[in-house]
């Protein structure tokens, strides 16, 4: 064992961050357990030669000033959140040794979820959980670990099972989880037990060095000030009262799990990043610039969910983009969402687009009767309606609006034996009727489809769509 008087190098020799006249002693009260535990940790960091790569996380509680003492990286965190903060650090710095040092209010009350989840994720961390059965920093209020009948400032008549429930058993609770590698409860009651705690802390750190996962050491620790006892009496109170409720021992030990290699975070070149994101230059499309006088086309494409109206809209939008037109696509969202039907708004324009939300469409593509009934009344007087006449019966369309019935679904079944391409037939019809994009642009787009077996049927469907309106009109509005 080391010379007990020598401060380990992982401890600052002078506590300059503490300020005030006495820079040699800690801010802890006489007889407080925090000091003992700090020392055990500091010695372990030195002996394991990991101080340089250690980050000490101190959330709120009496130990919030951990950074006064530990000559390691220090991150002070919000009350209860140390396991989440430690997670962020560890994931960013896989080589680091991260210690989350938490009190019982911090860990078992406000931070109950953070510790539970970090343990369950098996985060490779070392958690030191100081159980002193009270809130020290805020002046002696009840902790989740306060004993039954124990008086605190917020249980002036003593904690009762009826009102506050039983003391929280953290080591027991977390040990039922599968992921943690090591959970032990120790006490600071005497030298023998302090030596046990010393060993446990080292083991918990070694587990992290070996990247084995989550280790937590709960330590029963005196708080003479909170308990309103002299230091000597506080130790006795701990022995007489706490140890029975919180039995020391190893609650979980999977330490013979194999060590896992620590993978450094890869650093990618710009070219690798572009490749990963699919941002490589695919070259500009050869299509023409915006024809002069090209106005603004505002479409609503609507139908049953599953008819592919969103894709229909996207293909038209994308074709417009390839032709360097201004485009936007907006799916039904929020108040527009209704069960079973889907729609999207598409704008293809020669100018910068204001609202992407179409309120007075120049063109309605309706793939079923409800969509036709819903949107036909808002089509602009000079607008057009194209609808799937395979499904639609007796429709009452607004007077004066040009309406083109095309049996998209019937054509898909009869000509292509594939009901799923009705939307592409519709795309062909839209292009044939309006010329908002060129058929060749859409053909190029279809050829880029990731599923190769879909290319041919879709190209055919597009032609069927173009043909279906050939007799009606050539592209009018440009």
């Amino acid at each position, binding site marked *: 064992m080391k010379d007990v008087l020598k401060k380990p190098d992982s401890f600052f020799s002078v506590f300059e961050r503490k300020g005030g006249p006495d820079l040699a002693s800690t801010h802890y009260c006489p007889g407080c357990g925090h000091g003992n535990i700090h020392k055990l940790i500091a010695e372990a960091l030195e002996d394991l030669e990991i101080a340089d790569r250690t980050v000490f996380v101190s959330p709120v509680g009496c130990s919030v000033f951990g950074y006064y003492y530990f000559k390691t990286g*220090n991150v002070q965190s*919000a009350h209860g959140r140390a396991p989440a903060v430690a997670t962020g650090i560890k994931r960013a710095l896989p080589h680091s040794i991260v210690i989350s040092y938490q009190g019982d209010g911090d860990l078992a009350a406000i931070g109950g979820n953070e510790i539970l989840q970090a343990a369950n994720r098996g985060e490779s961390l070392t958690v030191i959980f100081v159980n002193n059965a009270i809130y020290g920093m805020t002046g002696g209020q009840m902790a989740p670990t306060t004993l039954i009948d124990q008086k605190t400032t917020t249980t002036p008549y003593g904690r009762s099972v009826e009102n506050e429930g039983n003391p929280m058993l953290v080591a027991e609770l977390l040990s039922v989880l599968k992921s943690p590698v090591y959970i032990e409860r120790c006490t600071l009651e005497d030298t023998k037990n302090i030596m046990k705690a010393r060993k446990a802390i080292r083991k918990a750190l070694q587990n992290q060095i070996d990247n084995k996962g989550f280790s937590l050491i709960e330590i029963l620790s005196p708080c003479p000030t909170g308990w309103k006892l002299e230091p000597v009496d506080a130790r006795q109170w701990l022995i007489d009262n706490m140890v029975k409720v919180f039995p020391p021992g190893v609650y979980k030990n999977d330490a013979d799990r194999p060590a896992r290699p620590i993978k450094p975070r890869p650093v990618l070149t710009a070219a690798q990043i572009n490749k990963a994101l699919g941002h490589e230059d695919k070259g500009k499309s050869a299509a023409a610039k915006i024809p002069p006088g090209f106005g603004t086309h505002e479409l609503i494409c609507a139908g049953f969910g599953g008819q592919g109206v969103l894709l229909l809209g996207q293909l038209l939008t994308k074709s417009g983009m390839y032709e360097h037109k201004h485009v936007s696509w907006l799916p039904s969202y929020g108040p527009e969402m209704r069960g079973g039907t889907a729609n999207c708004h598409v704008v293809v324009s020669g100018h910068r687009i204001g609202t992407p939300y179409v309120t007075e469409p120049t063109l309605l593509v309706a793939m079923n009767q409800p969509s036709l009934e819903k949107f036909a009344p808002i089509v602009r007087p000079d607008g057009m309606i194209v609808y799937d006449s395979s499904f639609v019966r007796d429709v009452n369309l607004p007077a004066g609006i040009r309406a083109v019935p095309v049996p998209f679904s019937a054509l898909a079944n009869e000509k292509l034996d594939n009901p799923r391409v009705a939307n592409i037939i519709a795309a062909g019809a839209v292009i044939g009727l309006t010329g908002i994009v060129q058929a060749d642009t859409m053909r190029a787009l279809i050829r880029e489809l990731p599923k190769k077996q879909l290319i041919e049927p879709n190209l055919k469907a597009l032609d069927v769509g173009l043909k279906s309106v050939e007799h009606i009109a050539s592209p009018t509005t440009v």
Partner: protein
Amino acid sequence: MAKQLVKGNEAIVRGAILAGCRAYYGYPITPASEIAETAALLMPLVGGTFLQAEAEIGAINMVYGAASTGQRVMTASSSPGISLKQEGISYCAGAELPCVVVNINRGGPGLGNIAPEQSDYFQMTKGGGHGSYRLIVLAPNSAQEMCDLTMKAFELADKYRNPAGILTDGYIGQMMEPVDFPEPLERLPEKAWAVKATAETTNNLISSILISAEELEKHVLKLKAKYDEIERTEVLFEEYRTEDAEYLAVAFGILSRVMMTAIDLAREEGIKIGLFRPITLWPFPKKPLGAWTGRARAILVAELSTGQMIEDVKLAVACKPPVDFYGRSGGMVPTPQELLQVIRKLREDHP
């Protein structure tokens, strides 16, 4: 590079990755979940971290931890989730940690609904969390800006060691538009202050606790000086058809897009109105908007709330000219025709 057609929410993540962000921590909530889903898909491909946190509180604290190491890191959520993140955002500001927080504003208060609102303007720009801090807030109104302003947010966050936010709505998030993705940043700013688990950084401390009153006041004043500098130098805004404008509309996010269309319609009727669009909500473009004092006959502030940004507009122009308000809530987004009516009335009331 050729343009890509992507959703605004996806453009945020792609922009973040291009800006060197390599960690995303978040919790699902509509209409922001796609950001998490896109990050889950893309982060692993660039050696980054994606982790679905236990809640928004966990997520922002994971962000705090990652930011402590100097990593570029982000989280995204929608209104109720942003409420939960406020303590963490305040801690980031106090400890001077750069990070990016995206808010796809939904309807509130309480659970509200998932439709677009702009009712988190106060929450984002006026603090939200405790203490004297500021969040830099950018308000994109297109998919391209979702990418560009996310990149900008990382740049500003690092430059000022302060969290930066994106405030936008479900429409801008859901909408697909062409995006020209810039080249990835290869060199990021050095962060000598960060805790990197190395011998050189063992003296580094990330903390927002300053027990002595003198020390904390000094720290707060240092932050204040930084915020003053941001207000002086980082204001962004856009004007649309304002050259000869007699009336001015002020709007951001989706409403600025609807307003552009309404302005086109109004101009067809001979109403000379233009749009002033703040891009930085904080720092609010006080000066450029203030230049309209005495220039416009009246100002119309339109918001998807019962009126929040209007307070900043009124301050900026000292209520000269008169400032009218049009607001919708609950996800009710006005049509350009509805806004046109409001503009007509504005002219009638202030001839």
